[in-house]
């Protein structure tokens, strides 16, 4: 892989420059001499797979961590940040992927955070209103953050940076939490902010976004800068190559990698027509919901009278933005949550792969054998025959192709991809009829993700299991599912596949509720 030389940027044009940045966490090198130069008044996309070091690089730029080596320049002058306060003082603002907002506090209090001396709520609120109007980002200063929709919280984050007079905005995966329409709107705002003289660093793993909005693109792989150039000088295939490190000579890129990351270029791994014909549609459904509703502990209705049936051999894809009901739907199907009303029909044992692997699926400090036995934990009786379980674990590692030294090593020593394959294999082992899978690729790199998705597509067994699959990445769902339902505002409805397999609009419209009267407003209010 060739390293693109950086186009030399005159010092007076650079907003932010990072050179030779090296960051180590213990024995792991997260960044190895990474570099990039961000020009004033531009949008600069930083691309890279999970673990490539994108966020680490930007945390160094925001003073969240001090690099072990390398130099930082802001507006041409060398700086050394001790904390994010120093970066803020230099006019840098960062919107983290997981918002740094305090949900129990008001917008005003959140934005005032980090100031000095007396705190006067009304003065701050006036200043917020002023900035919000000027930049076209409507926010209500008196609202409590926990009452705001995700998109509104994101606006608060941006306004927070702007109130502190940030000229350089770092946005970390800003569209990950947005519906497609909201994402488009945000990117349009980003473009206009840069056109008005501001500088934006856009961290993303979506090629489409980079090519839509960015002036310059930097690609990181394994902590190094592999490409850093103007967008016009780059082709999509070149960038894909740089991202995955698989040049044309070294082997083909796995199909699903393209499907899940390179949305616009390859969208054909869609619901293929023969898969839509489910082999066992005549069989009785394995999972069935009749009029199921769920009201959570805070009194919010999450599911409204849901009817659903999943048959053997089906892979039911569930789409929907965070908070619209997928989380609760999956947990009710998996038997991990009792519905408030309605009837659930399901096998005694349902396999469940929850999104937060290390928290909900495994115990990192326990051995692999113990983590296998964990699945039996609720109903095991009497003595434990550990030597037998060790044997079972060994078999499982072999059949699921989990790379591990042996059954006695702690789960924490496995890579994320191996952990996830272990969990899926374990759940498949105990539950043959039904499997519920939630965001299985979260935190995994591209190759590991591709394997997981490929495994899910080809699950065997007789009869074949009923699978329910949810991912926040629409492309992932479309590449795996045989049928798609959408959650919107607690309702669950089937999405009719479009005639053109590359057409995403029916799905995005369903997710935002724009296919129903008054839907857009409801999405915003949630």
């Amino acid at each position, binding site marked *: 892989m060739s390293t693109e030389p950086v186009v030399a940027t005159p010092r007076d044009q650079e907003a932010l420059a990072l050179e030779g940045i090296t960051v180590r966490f213990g024995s792991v090198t997260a960044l190895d001499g990474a570099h990039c130069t961000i020009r004033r008044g531009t949008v600069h996309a930083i691309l890279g797979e999970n673990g490539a070091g994108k966020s680490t690089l930007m945390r160094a730029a925001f003073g969240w961590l001090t690099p072990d080596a390398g130099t930082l320049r802001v507006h041409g002058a060398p700086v050394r940040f001790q904390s994010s*306060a120093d970066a803020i003082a230099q006019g840098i603002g960062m919107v983290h992927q997981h918002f740094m907002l305090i949900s129990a506090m008001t917008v005003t209090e959140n934005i005032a955070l980090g100031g*000095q001396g007396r*705190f006067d709520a009304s003065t701050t609120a006036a200043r917020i209103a002023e900035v919000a109007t000027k930049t076209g980002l409507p926010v209500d200063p008196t609202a409590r953050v926990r009452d705001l929709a995700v998109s509104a919280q994101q606006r608060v984050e941006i306004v927070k940076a702007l109130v502190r007079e940030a000229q350089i905005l770092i946005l970390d995966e800003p569209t990950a939490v947005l519906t497609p329409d909201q994402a488009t709107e945000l990117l349009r705002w980003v473009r206009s902010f840069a056109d008005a003289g501001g500088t934006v660093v856009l961290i993303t793993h979506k090629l489409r976004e980079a090519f839509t909005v960015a002036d310059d693109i930097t690609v990181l792989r394994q902590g190094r800068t592999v490409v850093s150039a103007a967008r016009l000088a780059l082709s999509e295939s070149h960038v894909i190559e740089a991202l995955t490190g698989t040049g044309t000579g070294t082997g083909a890129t796995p199909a699903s990698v393209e499907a899940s990351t390179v949305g616009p270029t390859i969208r054909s791994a869609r619901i293929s027509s023969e898969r839509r014909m489910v082999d066992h549609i005549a069989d009785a459904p394995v999972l069935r919901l009749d009029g199921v509703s769920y009201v959570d502990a805070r009194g919010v209705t999450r599911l409204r009278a849901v009817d659903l049936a999943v048959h053997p051999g089906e892979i039911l894809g569930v789409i929907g933005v965070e908070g619209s009901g997928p989380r609760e739907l999956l947990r009710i199907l998996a038997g991990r949550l009792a519905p408030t009303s309605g009837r659930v029909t399901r096998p005694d044992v349902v396999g469940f792969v929850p999104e937060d692997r290390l928290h909900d699926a495994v115990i990192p400090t326990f051995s692999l054998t113990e983590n296998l036995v964990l699945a039996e934990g609720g109903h095991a009786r009497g003595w434990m025959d550990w030597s037998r379980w060790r044997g079972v674990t060994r078999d499982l590692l072999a059949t699921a192709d989990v790379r591990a030294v042996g059954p006695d090593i702690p789960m924490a020593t496995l890579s994320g991809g191996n952990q996830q394959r272990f969990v899926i294999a374990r759940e498949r082992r105990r539950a043959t009829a039904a499997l519920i899978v939630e965001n299985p690729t979260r935190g995994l790199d591209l190759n590991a993700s591709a394997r997981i998705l490929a495994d899910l597509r080809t699950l065997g067994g007789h009869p074949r299991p009923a699978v329910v699959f949810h991912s926040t990445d629409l492309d992932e769902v479309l590449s795996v599912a045989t049928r798609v339902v959408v959650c919107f505002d607690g309702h669950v409805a089937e999405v009719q596949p479009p005639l053109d397999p590359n057409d995403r609009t029916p799905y995005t419209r369903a997710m935002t509720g724009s296919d129903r009267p008054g839907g857009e407003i409801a999405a915003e209010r949630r």
Partner: protein
Amino acid sequence: MEALLIPFLDATIRTATPLAYAALGEVVTERSGVINIGLEGIIIAGCLGGLIAAGAGGPTVGFLGGALAGLLMAALFALFVLRLKADAIITGTALTLLGLGVTGTLYRGVFGLEGAALGTPSIAPVALPGLSSLPLVGPVFFTQTVMTYLLYLLVPLLAWWLARTHTGLALRAIGESRTAAHAAGIAVDRIRWGAILFGGVMGGLCGATLVLAQVGTFTEGMSAGRGFIAIAIVVLGRWRVVGTALAALLFGGAFALQYLLQAAGWALPYQLFLALPYLLTLVLLAALRGRAEAPAELASHEG
């Protein structure tokens, strides 16, 4: 009736005063997202610190000594919890044992093996001119020691500070989400150190007040669970300054009830009254099941 009521209310304020010091300190500590279960050890350290310092330089020095003892204990707690990232609950338990052990050892070492109960210079109630002659309110609220009057100033000051200064805002923010506060450029650990040390000074003052303004002497283990009661008071006060001060009054009343009921000639065993504040703590904590208003970071210490 008034002959019983005024002494009861007077005793309520008097016993509530040290509790309020400890509890207000703990409010600040807990609003920063750390629970200091070792408050008990801090208070007993404040008791002995107050006694020794007062013996050397009179009551004023005594209060400084109590505050200093509390500060040192709190610094130890902060060192473990913030620097070494030790579990706050277990560290707090150790701190309590350390406080009880060290004071017991020192006291016997300094004052002899049997720990002869020594009197100490103490402060007397001061009647505030004018205010103290008001009916009922005067003898109850305005014929107290200077430590009580200081509280009258401290409560509104602390409430104002938490709500209306950026440091107060930062402290509350840290208690809700340390990552968010960190991202806003707030020096999280520095403020937590400050909050824990403040809690230590207040706990130490609680101990010194106990010795110098209430009991007049030191006995081993004289803190008698006040540290834990103060933590319950904070819960009852919903982590708010004024609420906590009022809750401290309620507990002062529970302690004072002993005198009232004994004076009224109740034939119940006095151990029941000894157990009353602890029972009350249990019952009130159970009754206030909703912990929704607790700083979110506190929950990270719970199962």
